[in-house]
Structures are given as C-alpha cells and as structure tokens.
C-alpha cells in the first residue's frame, strides 16, 4: 500500500510537470495526453482526475477526447507496442500472411496486451510508407518489406 501511494505521488508530480511544460489551455489538452501516454503507456483514472483540476475541464470531457484518438490510450499497454498496417496497399503485397504470422507468434488478437505485459498488438491504417509494404512498426522502429518468416526475428530484437 505504502509503495502504491509513493507511486501515485510520483505520477502526480510527473503529470504536473508535463502540464507546466506544455501548458494548461484547452488547446494543450491533446499534446498533454500524448505526453502522458508516452510516459506511462496509458492515461489512468488518476491522471484524468488530476488533469481535470489542473486544466479546469470536466473529467468526462477529458475522457471523451482521450478515447477519440487512436494514439491515446486509457487502458494499460505493454512495454512494446506493435502496430501493423492493415490498409489495402499493404494487404495486397502479402500483409495478410504476415499479420497471421505475427498473431501466431504473439498469441494476441488486435487490441490485446500479452499476459507478461511485454507486447500490445494494434492495427493501424496506412503509415505512409506503402512503397515498402507490408509494414510493421514496433514502438518507433519501422520494418518494411516484411515477410512471414522474418516476424520471429524482428520480435527477438526486443528480448
């Protein structure tokens, strides 16, 4: 319990710092939520409450914005986030096969996080690099021209 409280206090301090750095006007809300997602992996209830005070916005309003954007998350996510492009141009150059290889290797459905909290699997629309499809994005590392048998090798880089 005590350590939980320490964690909470630390998180609140970090959130205050983020708001101080970015700003507390309405226009700053999305950049602030982006930063919180990057830092903690997701936007917790606690974070939303604190932001509500700091930015003078109803919690409902913050939640409604936080759930609208795909790059923001209100659910805990894994240590590494894998995004797979599911748009047609990648699909037609073998994306479907690569995606099932990826799902098999991870044992995850899109949107799920692994039990050990290591991976979250997400699908995304076109990442604008269709010239080298199929494309997998792990955190900020981009892999292009991926084939099914490369999937395991890519994942092993994050061991």
């Amino acid at each position: 319990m005590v350590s939980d409280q320490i964690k909470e206090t630390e998180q609140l301090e970090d959130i205050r710092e983020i708001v101080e750095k970015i700003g507390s006007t309405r226009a700053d809300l999305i950049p602030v939520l982006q930063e919180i997602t990057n830092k903690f992996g997701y936007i917790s209830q606690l974070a939303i409450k604190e932001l509500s005070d700091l930015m003078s916005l109803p919690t409902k309003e913050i939640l409604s914005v936080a759930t609208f954007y795909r790059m923001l998350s209100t659910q805990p996510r894994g240590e590494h986030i894998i995004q797979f492009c599911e748009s047609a141009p990648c699909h037609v150059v073998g994306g479907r096969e690569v995606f099932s290889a990826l799902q098999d290797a991870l044992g995850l459905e899109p949107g799920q996080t692994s039990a050990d909290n290591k991976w979250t699997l997400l699908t995304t629309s076109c990442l604008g690099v269709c010239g080298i499809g199929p494309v997998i994005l792990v955190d900020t590392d981009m892999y292009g021209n991926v084939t099914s048998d490369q999937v395991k090798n890519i994942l092993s880089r994050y061991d």
Partner: protein
Amino acid sequence: MTVRSMILISNDPESRIRGSEKLFSEFQQQLAHYDLADEVSLTLATDLGSSYASPLVIVYPEAVIYGPITVADVPYIVKEHLYKGRIVDEKRAPVHELSGKVAWLSAREGTLPAENRVVLKNVGVIDAEDIEDYIANEGYQALGMALEMSPDELIDLIKASGLLGRGGAGFPAGLKWSFVKNTDSDKKYVICNADESEPGTFKDRVVLEGDPHAILEAMLISAYAVGADEGYIYIRGEYQLAIERMETAIQQAEQYGFLGENIFGSELSFKVHVHAGAGAYICGEETALIESIEGKRGEPRNRPPYPTTFGLWGKPTLINNVETFANIPPIIRNGSDWYRSLGTASSPGTKVYTILGNVNVTELIEVPMGITLREVITIYAKGMKSGSFKMAQTGGSSGSIIPASLQDTPMDFDSYNKTGVSLGS
C-alpha cells in the same frame, strides 16, 4: 517607404572575429550615403549556419550570397547591387556543396521526358535540415518578391496561375485566399493540412521531409496575402521524421528572421506551430482538424460557416494542403504564365502521384496534369507486372476506381469529373 531589400550579415562567433559588426556599421553608412536606409533593412543574423565563407552577406529578395566580405567590399556592393541593381558576381560565395542527406528519391531527374519537377524540385537534392541548402536553391526568394507586391496583387497572381487545391476537392487556391483576405477580423490563421491519411498516398510526407522550408515560405506568403499572423502545421502523428524536420526548419527560420516580427522589415509578423495528430483519420477533413487543434474530439463541424470566415477559434482561417502550398513559391518566382505552361488549361501545373500495385516500378512521380493513366503505367511504372491493366484507384482508398476504359482520359480535375470519377488527392 516600403522596404525593398533585406541584408543579412552573419554574426556567429567566427564572423564576429572577422569583423561582422564593422561590416554592419559600414553597410549602415553606405546605405545612408545612397539614401537607401529606408528601403533596405539591415540585420545581424545570429548564425547563417556555415563558416565556409564567413562573414556572409545575403541580399534579399534575390537571395544572393556574398562571402567572405570585408569592410572594403561594402561600398562597391551597396553601389552596384543595392543602388544600381546589379549583382556583384565576383563577390559571391563559392558554391556551397550540398550535403544531400535526403536520399529518399532515386536520383532520376530528367530521365523521363515528361517529368517536370516543381513541387519535388528540392526533394532528395538538398539537405532538408539545413536552411542554407534551401537558400542556395532560390529559397525565401519568393517571400521577398511577394512582400514587394500588395496582398491583392499577390492573390491576383495566384488566381491567374489557376492553381487548384491538392487536398482532394480541387478548390481554386487564389479564390480561397481572397475569401480569407476579404473577411474582416483582428486575428486570422493559416493552417497547413499535413494529416495525409489516405491509404496509399505519401506525397505530402515526402515534401515535408524533403523540403520543409518550402512549406514555411508558402505559409508566410499566404499569411501576408490574407492578413494572418499565426499558423499551424497539422502533421499526422505517425510522421515522426516529418514532425522533427519541420520543427528544425522552424527554429532555423526563426534564427534567420524569416519567422518572427516584421519580417524583412515589412509589416508581416508570423509565428507557426507544429501540431502532431493523435491518430484519427477524420482529422484530415478541415473542420475536424480545426476542432482537433482546439483540443477537442476531431468531429467535423456543420458547414456553413466555412473556415474562411469561421475557422480556428472562430477566426477566419486559410487551410491548404501541403502540395498546394509547395506550388506557391515556384509560382511567385516564375509567374503565372510559366505555371500555366504546365498541365492543362483547366488544371495547370503538375501533380505528384504515388504508384503502387501490380506494376514493375512503384514510386513517387511528379508529372504535368493531364497525363493519361496509360502513360503513367507504361512509362513511369514500366508496365504491368503480370496480366493486362484492369483498373486503378486514384487519390487513396477513398478515391475512385478507374476502369481500363478510362485509361486514355487526361488526368486532371476537369476531365475526371466529367466522366464521373475523381482524381482524389
């Protein structure tokens, strides 16, 4: 009296050792001598980025780079260049070797007869992270020329060029600018729509990554035309490199005085922000994009009112696509007749396309408007990989399906609309 030229003197530590401040006062005296002090603005720029020929002196709007310059050179440069209007060739800085760090496009300019680069002229050729590379390639010259025109003259020039918006709808750019210009307001905004999320298109990304200053220069020009003093570049969050390069470009432009207060000594003041998208396809739609910058869910507004009268925070707002903006500096530099010599009568200029699919070469091309799909496939994509051509899709996944029967229809807004299909973005 309006300022017609601007002189930048490098004032980095090295230039300072070599007497940049003395240069400054000598320029002041000489300008006063020729009675040019009111017409020529003089600035000690913190750092012109390179010491290869310091101290450097850059004269706008011609964007001539002189260097290394000593006090003894100043009277001659002022007399010849500023007074008589003749560039002093023998004092120009040696040609700066371009580092060419942007290597995305294969260096194949000129290999195909029809390829005419306007939008992609600098992409893959200059170092996108070095403002000097841009300046050495006519960069910020169009801004200087634009500031010598009145906003109305400028808008007339864009109208005369016939430039149509490249964000999908093909709306005449000059007309949109005039709507914003003609709406009275104490505050106006300019937004660059760089949300590019049509699956299969990445032309805007390549421009943002390869030539970010061209977008800043175009936004500055449009801000002057419509009377705005603040701008946003809304870049989709996934385009990390584009976001970083644009932020670097903004910093450099601020350092050089291309962004800030009273640019080139004119009444134009402009600041610009990068807004990274948070992942929502719909935010490419201009009113949803505005909501998103305001910190809300990116849901489209009912229209009218249109952003030109009621945009960001309710203020008149000009929104153009990346590729639309990228056409502005070349139009100003070369004129509307030149622009109309490219493309078709109803859709002047060029269009950047990404070619993807069952073809031999998938790539990014820039071609004159009005080229046919057959030409794109046989010449640029080097033919179908297998089988014969059945259909193609334009402008991303929400564009149109173009059947084989239309492969000889010119690809321009008008011809496509007439046959009931759309060119898309």
